[in-house]
């Protein structure tokens, strides 16, 4: 089922260009894709859910959702997919490429924006372009792997965090103003100290080795 793994990189040079991966990396990822999907053409949420190593991850559901989020496909559509093809899988993965030495400052800036946008989309689950307090609170709760005890702490931390965003970005709010939620610009602003382009990446294998098994 599907193209033979060794040829997909060469078959679709457009993939290389769109995602920025090298052909070997695409091959490796394709092998992994086939593993996850059980040799089918598309992956569903259950396939990703079944990965045993993900079980410990507190933000597992958000990560899986991110794969099925249309906004991460550079399509400017909103909504979520039921199943994703390999191209879409690759698009999502391309957000995690590291910057290269040859990149100019503008390219690095663009990459940073792209990665921040990915993060933003992960938080903004209802797709209205703003991270509201509730959405942010959910994030913090997941991070704390909250039992009932940490509910309160999650609230406080979220409140403090939102306050920080508001006070950094909108320093002179009048008493009548209501801070609706974190917009993308504000999000960029508060996270600019983190140098996202250098931090948000994983190492993609160049050589033709792939671990066996689903984990």
């Amino acid at each position, binding site marked *: 089922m599907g193209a033979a793994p060794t040829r997909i990189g060469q078959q679709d040079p457009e993939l290389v260009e769109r995602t920025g991966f090298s052909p070997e990396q695409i091959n490796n*990822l394709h092998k*992994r894709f086939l*593993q*996850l999907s059980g040799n089918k053409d598309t992956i569903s949420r259950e396939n*990703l859910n079944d*990965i045993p*190593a*993900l079980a410990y*991850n*507190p*933000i*597992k559901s958000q*990560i899986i959702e991110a794969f099925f989020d249309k906004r991460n496909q550079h399509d400017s559509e909103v909504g979520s997919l039921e199943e994703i093809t390999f191209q879409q899988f690759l698009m999502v993965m391309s957000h*995690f490429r*590291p910057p290269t030495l040859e990149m100019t400052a503008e390219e690095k800036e663009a990459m940073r924006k792209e990665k921040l946008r990915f*993060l933003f989309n992960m938080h903004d689950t209802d797709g209205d372009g703003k991270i509201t*307090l*509730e959405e942010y609170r959910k*994030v*913090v709760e997941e*991070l*704390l*792997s909250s039992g009932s*005890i*940490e509910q*309160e*702490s999650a609230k*406080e*931390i979220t*409140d*403090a*965090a*939102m*306050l*920080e*965003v508001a*006070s*950094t970005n909108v320093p002179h*709010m*009048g*008493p009548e*103003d*209501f*801070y609706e939620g974190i917009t993308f610009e504000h999000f960029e602003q*508060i*996270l600019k*100290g*983190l140098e996202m382009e*250098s*931090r*948000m*990446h*994983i*190492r*993609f*294998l160049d050589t033709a080795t*792939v*671990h066996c098994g*689903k*984990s």
Partner: protein
Amino acid sequence: MAGLGSVCSRRLAGFVSLLLLVFMAVIGSASPDAATGANETLRNSSEHRKAFPVLAFNYEHVSKPFVISLWILLALLMKLGFHLIPRVSHIVPESCLLIFVGLLVGGIIKAMDQTPPVLDTKLFFLYLLPPIILDAGYFLPIRPFTENMGTILVFAVVGTLWNAFFIGGMMFAVCQIEAAQVGHVDLLSCLLFGSIISAVDPVAVLAVFEEIHINELLHILVFGESLLNDAVTVVLYHLFEEFAHEGTVTVGDALLGVVSFFVVSVGGVMVGFIYGVLGAFTSRFTSHSRVIEPLFVFLYSYMAYLSAEVFHLSGIMSLIACGVIMRPYVEANISHKSYTTIKYFLKMWSSVSETLIFIFLGVSTVEGPHNWNWIFVIFTLILCLLSRVLGVVGLTFIINKFRIIKLTKKDQFIVAYGGLRGAIAFSLGFLLTDTEKKDMFLTAIITVIFFTVFVQGMTIRPLVELLAVKKKKESKASINEEIHTQFLDHLLTGIEDICGHYGHHHWKDKLNRFNRKYVKKWLIAGDRSSEPQLISFYNKMEMKEAMMLVESGSAAKLPSLASAASLQNAQQRAPPKQRAIPSISKTREQEIRKILRANLQKTRQRLRSYSRHDLFSDPFEDSMSEIRFRKQRVQMERRMSHYLTVPANRQETPSARKVWFEPEHKVYTYDESESPRDGAALETLPDTVSLLSESPQRPGQSSRLRKRGDTEPSANAPDSQEEPQKLSRCFSDPGPKEEEEEGEG
């Protein structure tokens, strides 16, 4: 006026220091005289009965500690003096100035025909070096260190080996030149010399790099290298020294050398690890004797160093490992004061050590003995620089293949240029036993040290500016950044899992989980052991906030009346679940309240409103400032109650190490920029606390700051309704205010 003052202070400083130098020299020379003087009186006394001595002079009784103290005092006064001369301290790094002073002192002492004290190797390695290394290791930034561990190790091990062999080999070739008259230096001695001088010195690197505030990556690369190359240096030094006498090194010995390297480094780390765990475990039980907590940290670390030295393992690596392992657990256990004590003592000791080292270096230079051989010295210098550059460039080429964030040419230059040599090389050279070559070697070593410290140390700052190397970014504690750092960690681990390969993040995550599940339970006392990291961070931030508020409060002027009544009304409310009431004394509590009330006048609220739901409409008041004021009181109530009801072991939690406090950017600040530190909305305290005593049934929501859009406005409204009324009754200290109208009484 100011110029005159500075000129006067300069003159004064110069005069005082000169006086001290002379005094120092006199004492140094006086000690033998005092001894003879005592003998004479003794002889005289046997001849006739002497009168009871009202005033006697008995110097040699205290001579040793006296001289030591005087030296240290001199060193510190010098350090003080440098900062009175502003222009110089900008251009010349402190280490240079100190060496210079050492030269002066040595010169003076020599001019008086005395023997100046030399940098004794035992003194250096056992007393002067450990504090510096412990300070470095304890405050080592772990994240960049572990992220770049591979690179650092390559530089430290391979780089140092390359340096040693290159320099040693080339020097041997140089020695063959007839004109140099150093033909008697054989290969092994050259290699020994190479191994001594090849290692980058942590003391010198720290001294110079600390002043240039370079970005974290470069700093950790050079600094980490200087720490980890100790194992290589130890092995090479012992290896060549053993066999310098034999004259040959067999292949078997070389292999043993390699094995020895692993033993030395891994063994050193293991020793440090054991002592670190012991220290962490001990700190778990110190809740009743807080005063001795810092001592445990210091002693366990020092024991780790000494134990490693017993077995000829790498003491530096042991010390670093001990500090790194111990730190997270100890900090969770000890009181805030102990943390501050540890921090300041370490800084103090390392500062004194560093100063003394450089001064002694200067003094020892004057002392000699020197055997200046032009060719040897010049070539050593050239080869050092050359091998460093070649090593760094070559290694970076290889490393960049494996790194994701590659090192640029600028980075390479700084790493190469930052390879300073220092006192360790000197002390190792001093340990040499073969006197003939020793002098020559020592001269060369001192020359290289001087060159690197003076020339490279002085020029690195302008070079950094010139090349526009990224500087250290001033980061303030940000809860958002912390949240997202953690979020990223989990995200990247998850993506790695989806990709299917076990990468860096996967193992880090596993380690964290292991740490959380098992290790923390053993090493951290009480319920802190199960606290998620985000909550710890948040609490640390809050605690630091509260402390800052208290401290800034003490600077403000006290109001004329401090109503005792409202103070006495204040009681602590019932603790929220899982917290114990702290044991602050009543007087302290009142003191805190008094100070906090002192900031009554200076209330501003930076963030007027976070959500419309916070604006409760109050039929009684209609002025804007009133509404604002009330909100502040509510918020301060939370803050104060939290601060006072934090449990004993929590209250003293150490502040987050990275928190860089800038009042304007405080997360919870209420101040506008005009009066930064004064009274961030603290005036509400007495009232709010009294409020609390009157409404103890308020549910747990009051324990924290509640500042933003609540989605239950209905819950807010009744709270806010009752509060103003109660507060208006309790509030009894109007005080002069610029903005707030306190109409109530």
